[in-house]
């Protein structure tokens, strides 16, 4: 039995416009990092590379680095460049 975990993936802003935007749980091998999840999303295709490149990632509502190790049940959000406020 392979050692896996599930994380919840959330997409926001312009990333919600793409069909690939499944907001559900995602199975990952134990010990997977933020970068592994991003690679998996990229592998799915469907999300525009340019936007993905410019995006940040938050784990459990805090910004997280690419090397951050994920845990079962984590909420991982892909955040395109933000545009709150007003110019």
């Amino acid at each position, binding site marked *: 039995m392979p050692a896996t975990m599930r994380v919840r993936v*959330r997409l*926001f*802003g*312009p990333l919600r*416009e793409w069909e690939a935007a499944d907001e559900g749980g995602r199975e990952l091998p134990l010990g997977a990092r933020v970068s592994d999840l*991003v690679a998996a*999303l990229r592998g799915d295709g469907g999300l525009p590379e340019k936007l*993905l*490149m*410019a*995006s*940040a*990632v*938050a784990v459990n*509502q*805090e*910004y*997280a*680095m*690419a*090397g951050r190790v994920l845990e079962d049940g984590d909420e991982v*959000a*892909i*955040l*395109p*460049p*933000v*545009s*709150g*406020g*007003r*110019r």
Partner: protein
Amino acid sequence: MELVRERIDTAALTQGVKAGGDGAVCVFDGIVRDNTRGRRTLHLDYEAYEEMALKQMRELAAQAVERFGVREVTLVHRLGRLVVGETSVLIVVASAHRGAAFDACRWVIDTLKKTVPIWKKEQFVDGAVWADGEPFPDDIAGDAS
């Protein structure tokens, strides 16, 4: 710190903050403009990663108090559909002295625009687009790239 879906009552929020030791209140009122680079705007739709945005807004206000020594920072952002002339974000900083009030107010809006997870889609007469957004600061950018 609040995310609201109704009109922001600038007057009430501004009046509410003053205390006896304050000598300066600096207010930033961000409002929906009628155009972006000359293209006429009909309305804007703001959305947020709400749990995280609120957390970030609270942190921003606390950091501003600590960094600039102001007495109080109030920060409200509106979500949903806004028309031209409506307030999308309001920042009120109360302080004994004016320099700190200005510096803190500006730092809060500048930092909010780069880090708080809120997005806006602009509806023009001839189509809708998501605003480009600002690149994330280096300390956040370890990331989906």
